[in-house]
């Protein structure tokens, strides 16, 4: 089954606007993480929200988690051109031993100056 499916697949907004990306998943999780990837580059960790948390803030980022709906959202406020990137949610699989992350397809965010 697919985990961590983001929508929209692509989002284009004007600088200064807020950007909201959503993620849905199917199975139980320990936590959900959001990552950013600039084109062809590595994954930068943005924020981790635990399954017993509902909302978390970090600077201009706000993440919510609704475990009853198995969904999360990432809000970037007052967007900047430098926020242009792909954003991925990743859920951990509850397994024995080490944690593995299951990534979605990502949302390609474009901030127009």
């Amino acid at each position, binding site marked *: 089954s697919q985990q961590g499916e983001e929508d929209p697949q692509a989002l284009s907004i004007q600088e200064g606007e807020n950007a909201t990306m959503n993620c849905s998943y199917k199975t139980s999780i320990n936590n959900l*993480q959001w990552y950013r990837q600039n084109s062809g580059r590595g994954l930068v960790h943005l924020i981790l929200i635990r399954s017993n948390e509902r909302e978390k803030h970090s600077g201009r980022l706000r993440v919510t988690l609704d475990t009853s709906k198995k969904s999360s959202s990432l809000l970037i406020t007052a967007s900047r051109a430098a926020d242009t990137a792909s954003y991925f949610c990743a859920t951990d699989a509850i397994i024995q031993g*080490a*944690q593995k992350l299951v990534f979605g397809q990502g949302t390609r965010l474009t901030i127009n100056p």
Partner: protein
Amino acid sequence: EPEVTQTPSHQVTQMGQEVILRCVPISNHLYFYWYRQILGQKVEFLVSFYNNEISEKSEIFDDQFSVERPDGSNFTLKIRSTKLEDSAMYFCASSRETGNRETQYFGPGTRLLVL
């Protein structure tokens, strides 16, 4: 701030050749991972490693793949006989612990191109 590093950043190889991708995880981390991302596709889990052994591997991680921690700092991924479909970006990650508290930190990736 400590970070995961990977070398080389790019590797081009001929089909059938062996490649070794290298990673230096964050120094106090105990759990190590390899992921790959084929161009335009999702990031996919390959393998996790703890206490000098594989703790989980995906179905992608077949007999052509192996991992090793040859010393106290390096973590390597070896592909014995590369195939065209192995062309991808390979990411190493590490975490201090597991469970609901722990973030996995990713390296910048190695872009592998198999010709």
